[in-house]
């Protein structure tokens, strides 16, 4: 075991996979430059050469199809996008093609491409550099979807994706990149489809993903100090989704709050709330609540942006309300200390 940054964990995982499997390649805008996708591809081009690690033209649609075709031809491409918002350009290749390749050809072929995309936030990212599209990838069948929260998740899910025979997308969060976490040496694959209980508790279940887990854990400390014991479940794998762990927790606590990095409407939070309202109905003691980005386009101005995202404070407040209590003063504020210029 050792403790490293999230970005380093991603880098080490792919390097380990590249060492073991000569078919693994890394492609995407900027993967080979000195910024190296916030360090997550640092040094790879020197170590594995420009045939296996290369920058691409700014052609997200074709490059996704090219990654797909490369996967059919025997490569295992990791295609990286520094912002998830750019995936809108690649949706046809992702959904009409990669996600359907195995099924529409009757199981004759799999398309083992891996997409990594980073959610942006703050420092003026605004309308077009702040979106997290996991619900799209959950809606349309055919792609494994992971949202690694810790260094270990990042390493494990990426390794797992690189051993899969089908397309996988990993959605990462910019705010997680510098967070330290324990990882095993050498890295081992984390199976998709297993949620992680980040904190055990009995009074309510908070299902949160990605950076929202960090905020939720902070909220849970405050709740705990005030006599509320929150259980925090982090799906990390959205497709397949570990329904059992989520439902088990809800059946235990009877209360569910779902928190997503994206919008609420038709989001991951809707899915998990609906799941509970169906499969854990008889255990529910109160309304299922959801939190996510405000239902508007992401603003740049700091005071507006603060209102736009759930925070430890608003999460705690919601939890208190769900338990019929008034939120006491003194809620923690997580200072992400994130600075630009990008």
């Amino acid at each position, binding site marked *: 075991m050792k403790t490293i940054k999230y970005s380093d964990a991603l880098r080490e995982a792919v390097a380990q996979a590249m060492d073991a499997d000569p078919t693994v390649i890394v492609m995407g805008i900027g993967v080979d430059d000195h910024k190296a996708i916030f360090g997550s591809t640092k040094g790879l081009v020197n170590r594995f050469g420009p045939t296996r690690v290369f920058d691409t033209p700014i052609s997200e649609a074709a490059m996704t199809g090219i990654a797909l*075709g490369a996967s059919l*031809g025997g490569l295992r491409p990791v295609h990286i996008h520094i912002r998830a918002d750019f995936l809108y350009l690649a949706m046809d290749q992702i959904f009409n093609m990669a996600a359907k390749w195995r099924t529409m050809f009757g199981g004759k072929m799999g398309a083992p491409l891996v997409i990594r995309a980073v959610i942006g936030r703050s420092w003026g990212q605004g309308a077009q550099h702040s979106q997290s599209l996991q619900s799209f990838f959950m809606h349309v069948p055919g792609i494994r979807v992971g949202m690694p929260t810790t260094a270990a998740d990042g390493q494990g899910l990426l390794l797992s994706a690189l051993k899969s025979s089908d397309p996988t997308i990993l959605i990462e969060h910019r705010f997680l990149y510098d967070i330290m976490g324990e990882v095993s040496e050498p890295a081992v694959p984390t199976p998709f489809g297993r949620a992680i209980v980040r904190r055990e508790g009995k009074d309510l279940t908070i299902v949160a993903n990605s950076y929202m887990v960090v905020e939720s854990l902070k909220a849970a400390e405050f709740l705990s100090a005030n006599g509320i014991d929150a259980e925090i479940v982090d799906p990390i794998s959205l497709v397949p989704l570990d329904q059992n762990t989520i439902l088990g927790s809800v059946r235990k606590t009877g209360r569910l709050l779902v928190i997503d990095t994206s919008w609420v409407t038709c989001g991951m939070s809707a899915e998990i709330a609906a799941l509970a309202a169906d499969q854990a109905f008889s255990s529910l003691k109160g309304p299922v609540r959801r939190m996510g980005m405000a239902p508007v386009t992401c603003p740049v101005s700091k005071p507006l942006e603060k209102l736009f995202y759930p925070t430890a404070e608003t999460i705690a407040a919601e939890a208190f309300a769900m338990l019929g209590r008034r939120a006491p003063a003194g809620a923690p504020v997580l200072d992400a200390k994130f600075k630009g210029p990008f």
Partner: protein
Amino acid sequence: MKKKPRFSPERDLALRLYRTMLEIRLAEQRIVTIYPSDKIQSPVHLSIGQEGISAGLCLALAPGDHLYGTYRGHGLYLARGADMGEMFAELYGKDSGCTRGKGGSMHLVAPHVGLMGCSAIVGSTIPVATGDALAAKTLKKKYVTAAVFGDGAVDEGVFFESVNFAVLKKLPVIYVCENNKYAIHSKVSDRHAQTVVAKFASGLGLRGITIDGDDVFGVYKTVLREAAALRRGGAPVLIEMTTHRWQEHVGPGSDIEEYYRHKGEKSRAQRSDPLSRAQSVLKKKFGVTKDDLVAMQAEITAKVDGAVAFAEAAPFPGPQRLAADTFASA
């Protein structure tokens, strides 16, 4: 014209090219016959009139080469020698179909003969074929990949994005544009001011040539030459192959005299019929007789009969097939 000996390789090749076209023609004509029965509940995009391209291309490529096609894919599928019975079974939605009833007419596939997939989204296999060529180059494999698409696909941005990457990386990919003059009912000139498809991406450094796609021998020779050049490390190329679509865009009928067609198209298409033209060559150059041709037709008709019978007899997929093949391990 000098008569060639009866068993020369040229003669054999010419007969194989012709036979391949005839197989496509007769199979598709059978689709037309069957269609009113509603046994084929699938949008069919027929290649009647365009067989020269599929035959010339598929025979010129090596066995290990890869191809990607469109919803108008019967020709490629048959010309690569994939099983005709499995094609008809697929059209019938049967479990014995080449995609076990999942894909239907628009998604034929036969990876064992290099047909890696056909897609119903215009232009969508162009980058995929390009990526396959990237894999070949990266893994130092010798195969060449052909992306086959229509004159409508060059409207899509991915065409330009893909060829730019292919030219940049010098990938072993042949872009084959079947220019049948229409995207559904829309002429090339309705969608482009400059109408020579082969030139569209010249500004990106893509070499383009235009050939007569209804001349199966010319198609064969051109593809052979270009594929060989690619195997020697040459640059990617776009081959525009002009042809004629006799039928309506989708469905079994012909609409070659519809208002939207070019004037005089029917007679031009007939004169350009790749089968008739190849027949004359067979007769004049290779001494193939009418009897030979009648025998061949009978043989293929029997093959089509067999394929249809196979499809008719094949079982539909059982309910457990619905959830199958979403993920490898599921």
